[in-house]
């Protein structure tokens, strides 16, 4: 094992390799565009190689943060003059999850697209490089650059079917909202550079650590935050996500939901713990602000998810709900809270990716993603149905899927830090989301209950969906059933790993050890004794975690059955649950980017006002 603090040559390679291959594929497109399989193989091999390198890095960085200075420009006298990658095991783990999901969706696309030109593969690899670079960078301006690299690739991938109306609108809304967020972040970065004269996160953190925060730092923090939580789909910055998910090709949705949104929240944690944490102080005010945002997001997302009939949009809103729960885990500012969020991200990423891939298979075979049209038509898709149901149960925190550990740890840490209601919020939103997806599983794949009323909003879009795939194949090809199966199995297997809790908590401590990060990056020191604000908490799997996991899954099942059969129950026949309220909320999701931006400005004003008031 490499001594911590030394340069690791693998660190830059995980970004350089996919970027080079992407450029090569684009340059040679005239030669190889006829050989589709060569393209697929090269792209899959690249993402497999990146995943392998990142898993190695994750093991190596367990002992300490690994740092790589580009062009060998090491810090002099404790001041960074170059640009670095600085990654702990949490960053590498998240990057590894990214690479694994890219591999899965590449395998899935093997038979998915009628014609995929070279630029689909190139864009996917650039997207991968952008996300991995975002995880590993130790420089706050580069954080913005990687943010935009993955952003531009994602906008282009959303508009993959550029001849149609939906993708154009989805990609446009996505690009405008995220770019506005990114530029506001850049303004914040400019302010922070003005204050500290540094761009390296460790160096800024050290410079801000002394003295009072001052209003400039609070304004900079809020501005930097905007871009990250727009990417992280936190209410009221979340509107773009449902539009983008509804129209992006399914293999791309896997990445959007599985990791891209989570990366935005990872950015919040990274920036908070490496840059602003010590300088801002007022930990309890920070906790309160992020807890409120997270809980609001979790409940709003879950509510919208249950209301949806469009499968991709349903999964998109469930991602918003889970993003809220991840933010709650971070907001506690404890190692166990962050570890819980990490476990949740892993479990959710794998399970959600599997769900999207199953929806892709349904779309491929049945030519629709409308729950009411699909009712009972999925019976022939046996494997897909089973995998979808298992993944839905995983989404509802059923043990042993890793999601239940995440929910349990976040709840435990919250309870021991004076926020016992968090457990209830986690359970309610998981029951709503799980109930929605299980309702689809029962209705579509097993024909249970009554077909839901057709949603007039979906009628016009229904014809367009079909063209994503060639369709008309006798059965779902193996490349479409195997990846989701493997992902669901992985989510369950990870939940069964014996020392997962202590490993994740150690990784979380690495992130939250601000002083240690500064010493490692700027001084090249090997930090062995991690010192975070809050002490470690026990991570043993307790009976109550199992109980609440099973309880949530049972609640979701009941809710799903209720959703399928409520019209047969006496007295409920005429009931249209929460119709008036829901219609009002639906109008908010107007599809017009101007409205989304108004909400964004409103959100900035609220968060800025709240933090300016409480961080004085």
């Amino acid at each position, binding site marked *: 094992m490499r001594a911590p603090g030394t340069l690791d040559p693998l660190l830059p390679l995980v970004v350089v390799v996919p970027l080079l291959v992407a450029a090569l594929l684009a340059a040679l497109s005239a030669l190889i565009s006829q050989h589709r399989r060569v393209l697929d193989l090269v792209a899959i091999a690249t993402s497999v190689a990146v995943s392998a390198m990142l898993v190695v890095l994750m093991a190596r960085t367990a002992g300490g943060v690994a740092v790589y200075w580009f062009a060998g420009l090491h810090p002099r006298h404790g001041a960074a003059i170059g640009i670095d990658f600085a990654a702990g095991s949490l960053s590498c783990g998240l990057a590894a999850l990214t690479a694994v999901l890219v591999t899965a969706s590449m395998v899935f696309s093997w038979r998915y697209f009628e014609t995929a030109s070279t630029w689909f593969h190139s864009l996917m690899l650039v997207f991968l490089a952008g996300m991995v670079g975002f995880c590993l960078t130790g420089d706050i*301006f580069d954080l913005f*650059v990687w943010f*935009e690299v993955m*952003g*531009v690739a994602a*906008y*282009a991938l959303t*508009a993959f079917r*550029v*001849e*149609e*109306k*939906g993708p*154009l*609108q*989805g*990609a*446009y809304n996505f*690009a*405008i909202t995220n*770019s*506005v967020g990114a*530029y*506001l972040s*850049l*303004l914040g970065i*400019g*302010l922070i*550079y*003005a204050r500290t004269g540094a*761009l390296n996160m460790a160096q800024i953190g050290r410079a801000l650590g002394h003295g009072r925060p001052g209003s400039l730092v609070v304004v900079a923090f809020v501005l930097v935050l905007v871009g990250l939580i727009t990417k992280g789909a936190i209410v009221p910055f979340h509107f773009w996500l*449902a*539009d983008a998910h*509804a*129209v992006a090709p399914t293999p791309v949705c896997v990445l959007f939901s599985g990791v891209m949104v989570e990366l935005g929240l990872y950015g919040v944690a990274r920036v908070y713990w490496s840059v602003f944490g010590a300088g801002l102080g007022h930990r309890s005010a920070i906790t309160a602000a992020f807890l409120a945002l997270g809980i609001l997001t979790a409940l709003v997302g879950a509510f919208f998810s249950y209301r949806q009939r469009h499968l991709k949009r349903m999964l998109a809103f469930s991602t918003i709900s889970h993003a809220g729960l991840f933010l709650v885990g971070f907001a506690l500012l404890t190692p166990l809270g962050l570890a819980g969020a990490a476990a949740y991200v892993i479990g959710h990423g794998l399970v959600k990716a599997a769900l999207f891939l199953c929806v892709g298979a349904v779309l491929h075979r049945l030519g629709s993603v409308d729950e009411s049209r699909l009712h009972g038509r999925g019976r022939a898709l046996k494997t897909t149905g089973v995998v979808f149901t298992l993944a839905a149960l995983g989404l509802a925190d059923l043990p042993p899927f890793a999601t239940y550990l995440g929910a349990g740890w976040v709840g435990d840490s919250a309870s021991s830090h004076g926020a016992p209601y968090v457990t209830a919020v986690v359970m309610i939103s998981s029951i709503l989301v799980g109930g929605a997806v299980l309702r689809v599983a029962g209705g579509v794949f097993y024909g249970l209950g009554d077909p839901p009323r057709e949603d007039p*909003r979906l009628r*016009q*879009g229904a014809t367009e969906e079909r063209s994503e795939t060639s369709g008309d194949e006798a059965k779902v090809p193996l490349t479409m059933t195997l990846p989701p199966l493997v992902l669901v199995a992985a989510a369950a297997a990870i939940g069964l790993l014996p020392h997962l809790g202590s490993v994740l908590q150690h990784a979380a401590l690495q992130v939250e050890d601000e002083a240690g990060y500064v010493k490692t990056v700027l001084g090249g020191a090997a930090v062995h004794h991690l010192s975070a604000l809050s002490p470690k908490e026990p991570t043993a799997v307790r009976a109550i975690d199992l109980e609440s996991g099973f309880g949530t899954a049972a609640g979701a099942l009941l809710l799903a059955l209720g959703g399928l059969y409520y019209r047969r129950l006496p007295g409920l026949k005429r009931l249209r649950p929460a119709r008036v309220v829901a219609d009002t909320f*639906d109008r908010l*999701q*107007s*599809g*017009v*980017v*101007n409205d989304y*931006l*108004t909400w964004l*400005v409103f959100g900035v004003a609220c968060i800025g006002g709240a933090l300016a008031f409480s961080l004085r």
Partner: protein
Amino acid sequence: MSLFPYLVAAWIALVGLYGLVTSRHLVHQILCLVVLQSSTYVLLLAVGFKTGGIAPYFSDVSGRPVTVDPVVQALVLTDIVVEVAVTSLLLGLAVRAHRRFGSVDPEELRQLRG
């Protein structure tokens, strides 16, 4: 260093945001995004400015002259590259949207709702 350039940057940012929120034309809206981004240039250049400082690339000056901060200039260059990528992609989408929707009003792009 006076406060003036910072006020200008803030004003440009707010004007850009106002335009983005109220725009009824896709191309206009995209240009408002460019305006919003221009505020970052002004801010960064103001941060690195030194009174009497010369450009940070020189060969014919003896001694150690006062220069403006070269880092922010590198940042602005990178920023411009990012802007080119985003803007060209968005304008491409706007052209396609005009073709498919027959309109360049963001209010008319209503395929997705609810």
